[in-house]
Every structure is written in structure tokens, then in C-alpha cells.
């Protein structure tokens, strides 16, 4: 199998930059959300369509990012 339809895009969730990487392997779309800096993974999901995989990843990323506390410096 070859990897198809690879794409990356950046968006912001709760003030945090998020990188969304999506690609297709066989009949499955895979999506990975990471937090850009430092680059740690937030979610890895699958779906029958790009939209489904990305929606799941964004929902999971949103949930995790909402728990991040900012401390006064």
C-alpha cells in the first residue's frame, strides 16, 4: 500500500497552535494532532473520510488542551 492524500495544516485551539496531519492508507484516513511546540502528540484517530478522522482528532485535542494550566511567571 502507498500513502495517499497526505496533508498538514495549522490551526489554533484555546490559544494553542495545533498541527493536523492527515493521510490515507488503504481505505482508512489517519489523523494526528500535535501541539506544534513542543510537538507532542495530542490525538491519533482514524475515519472512513478525512473529515471524520480530523473531527475526532480535533475533539480529542480540544479536550486535552482545555486541561492545560497557564501559571503566572
Amino acid at each position, binding site marked *: *500500500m502507498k500513502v495517499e492524500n497526505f496533508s498538514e495544516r495549522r490551526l489554533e485551539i484555546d490559544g494553542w497552535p495545533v498541527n493536523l496531519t492527515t493521510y490515507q492508507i488503504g481505505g482508512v484516513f*489517519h489523523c494526528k494532532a500535535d501541539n506544534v511546540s*513542543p510537538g*507532542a502528540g495530542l490525538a*491519533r484517530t482514524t475515519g472512513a473520510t478525512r473529515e471524520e478522522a480530523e473531527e475526532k482528532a480535533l475533539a480529542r*485535542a480540544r479536550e486535552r488542551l482545555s486541561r492545560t494550566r*497557564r*501559571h503566572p*511567571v
Partner: protein
Amino acid sequence: MADYAHPEVLVSTDWVAQHANDANVRVVEVDVDTNAYKEGHVPGAIAWSWTTQLSDTVRRDILNKHQFEKLMGDSGISNDTTVVLYGDNNNWFAAWAFWEMKMYGHKDVRIMNGGRKKWLAEGREVSTSEPSLAPAIYRAVGPDNSLRAFLDQVQAALAARSHHMVDVRSPQEFTGEILAPPGLPETCQRGGHIPHARNIPWSKAVNEDGTFKSAEELKALYGAEGIDGSKPVIAYCRIGERSSHTWFVLKYLLGFDRVQNYDGSWTEWGNLVGAPVERGASAAKTA
């Protein structure tokens, strides 16, 4: 890759496509997210889990020599095998595995430049099947602890101001604004950084496609913060994998002789009672 101090430790995705199934080559995927391999991987590659196979699962430590020999043997790797490592997150844990393999003296270990991301982005062939492996005999040497910094060494280095400390976390982790990467559980009691450390996030060493920046760019990046190889360097992050990436860059791409990875990192220092902590941005550069 020719301008790097040790260009032989990097291979391109093209090289891997041509040589992944050579008899003396073993390709290993090492991911932060150990589920990535199952989605699809370089055909012929095996996977190592950093949590269960590259670390002791009881105490916090890397593998001991016996455990390491067993992992290599079970992976069909002998002392003269060419091992090519790659992984997600721009090779974070591939660099960790590289560091561990060098600690135990493996001669020919390389990293696939660009990692898993570049392989996928190039639309290359992937497989979901795991290769069957013939066990091999492996004899490790070491560990070479000159590549690793322990807490007492970091404390001594700080007291003597004998080393350059490089904190490779994000600026927000460095200042203490956040205690872990956004979205991840807080794993320390205090935020901030080791006093006098310079903040050079690991990600500044890579291009958008995941490959390493040129030797010239890397020299300028670290040189601008006074990291030029004139002093020994200790790199740290949160748990030691991002700093193994920077350790790789400094030691193998720039050729600095004395570079140690402090794998205890902030999850050790930021939990210590009485440890000195600096918050906010870096103080002015000092030699």
C-alpha cells in the same frame, strides 16, 4: 549531508527505500505514540516501544546491559548489523534509541533523515505486517556513561559553571508558564529551568519536512546562544527524549566531543526538594 561532522549517521528516505531489505540492515521504527507503527510502516521495519522495550519497566532507567543484549538479539540484530532508526515527532525517540545504542557501543546505527513524517509525506510504500526475525547473538560493551548526565553531575556542573546547559523544551515550559507540553499531564512540582541554561527548542534544529537543518544553520543556531563546543554541554528537556534529539545534533551533526544527555531532565529537577530553579526568560548570556 556532506557538511555534517558525521554524515554517515544519517540516511535519506531514498536510501531506506533501496536498502531496507538488505541482509545486514535492520530498520526500526521508534515512536512517541507506539500505535503509529500499526497504521503502516516502512516495509520490513520492526518496532520498539520506548516505554516497554527501551526502558526498564520497574525503575526509571534505560535498559541494563543484559536487557539491551536481549532486545538486540530478539530483534535479529548482531554487532555488525547496520541499524536504521526512524520515528514520529521528527525522530524524537529514534534519537533516544540512537543514544542508547551508542551507550552500549553499537557501531553502525543511523537515523532516517525526516523520520516517519517524511516517509508518509512522500507517499511511499507502507506495510502493516511484521517481519519474522531470526534471533541473533549480541554482545554489548559499556554502558558509556560519558554520553549521559546524572543528577549529581548536573548539580556539580551548575555549581562549577563548567558546562553549557541547553534546555530544549518550548519557551513556555522554559519560563515556567506551563509545567508540561500543552495537553499533556503535569509531571513536575515546579516550573522553570535550571539556572543559567539556554533555551534552544529542539524544533529549531529541523526543517518543515522533518529533516535536519544544514550544518551551517545549526552552527549559527547554537552559536548565537554561545553553544560552540568550547565547553562540555548538557542537554535536557522533560523526560530526556527531546534532549536526545539535540544531543544527536550537537554530537554527530556538529561534532562536539563532550555532549551529555540528562535524561532525568525536568521531571527529575523540577521535583527535587531544594533544587535551584530560575523562572522567566534566560538571563544574559555568560561564558
